[in-house]
């Protein structure tokens, strides 16, 4: 029986030389190739629908090992392609068409939007900035005493006052984090705020007050780092972490989805 296959699309770029990527293996192990439409080149590989078909994907996307392996391979391919062009729009994880023709047709239909998206990210990279505060996690507020008196009432009142203080401190941190974010936007091409990551996933005991990402001109990255350093000095209550450059995952957005 012949295995059915699909076409996995990693990214679309301008003037990509597919030969330079042909040594790479895509997700599932098939070689990387490009398919071309006018001046755009899509970076693709063939995938078996046994692994990447609809029912298989539903199962595999719930398997963190599989998701990690696929995400890392996808990222590797996108980074290698980004290294040989200035304009590369990464696609979302597991964007798979039923055939190469279906992928090409879709890219042809969206040609104008893709060109606009590529113009916005040309010669720019994404940088992640997170700010961690050392604040305590907020405890749950105890329920009010049922009878409003007795020896427990004084304790509860004290406990509520403590929690109010912690909440105020947390809200001060949030105001500061908002202010830090706006200061970081000076001179950047675009920005997005992501939801702060859960402590269990960030692996940090500190609270993540800011999870933001910035699109920065490649020839202005030095200024951006300088800005971050200045802000570290001015916001000593935050531990500020910069990470990148990323391919412009958060900014390769089509106007018409």
């Amino acid at each position: 029986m012949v295995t059915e296959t699909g076409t996995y699309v990693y990214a679309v770029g301008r003037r990509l030389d597919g030969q330079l990527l042909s040594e790479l293996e895509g997700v599932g192990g098939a070689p990387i190739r490009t398919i071309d439409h006018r001046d755009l080149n899509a970076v693709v590989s063939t995938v078996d629908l046994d692994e990447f078909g609809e029912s298989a994907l539903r199962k595999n996307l719930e398997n963190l090992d599989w998701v990690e392996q696929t995400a890392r391979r996808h990222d590797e391919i996108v980074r290698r392609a980004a290294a040989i062009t200035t304009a590369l729009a990464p696609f979302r994880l597991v964007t798979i068409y039923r055939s190469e023709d279906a992928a090409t047709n879709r890219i042809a239909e969206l040609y104008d939007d893709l060109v606009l998206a590529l113009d916005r990210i040309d010669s720019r990279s994404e940088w992640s900035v997170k700010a961690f505060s050392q604040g305590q996690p907020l405890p749950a507020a105890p329920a009010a005493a049922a009878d409003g008196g007795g020896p427990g009432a004084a304790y509860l009142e004290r406990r509520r006052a403590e929690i109010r203080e912690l909440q105020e401190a947390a809200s001060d941190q949030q105001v500061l984090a908002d202010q830090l974010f706006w200061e970081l936007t000076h001179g950047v091409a675009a920005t997005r705020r992501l939801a702060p990551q859960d402590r269990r996933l960030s692996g940090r005991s500190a609270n993540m007050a800011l999870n933001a990402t910035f699109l920065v001109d490649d020839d202005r990255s030095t200024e951006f780092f300088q800005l971050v350093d200045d802000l570290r000095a001015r916001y000593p209550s935050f531990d500020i972490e910069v990470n990148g450059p990323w391919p412009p995952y958060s900014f390769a957005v089509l106007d018409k989805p």
Partner: protein
Amino acid sequence: MTLESAQQSAATGETSLVDLLDRLLGKGVVISGDVIISLADVDLVRIQLSAVIQSVRKEMSSL
């Protein structure tokens, strides 16, 4: 991959899986139509993944 190893990779400077998924699941060019499956339709039920997915969804729904 366990939660512990996800945390380790976050702590050691290797690209953190959470940072990667923040970007790969939520953003990137999204082209629907003819695609085999849309991530938004997938019910990702694993506990380990749920926090990542929730944070990504929250962000997407605020757009």
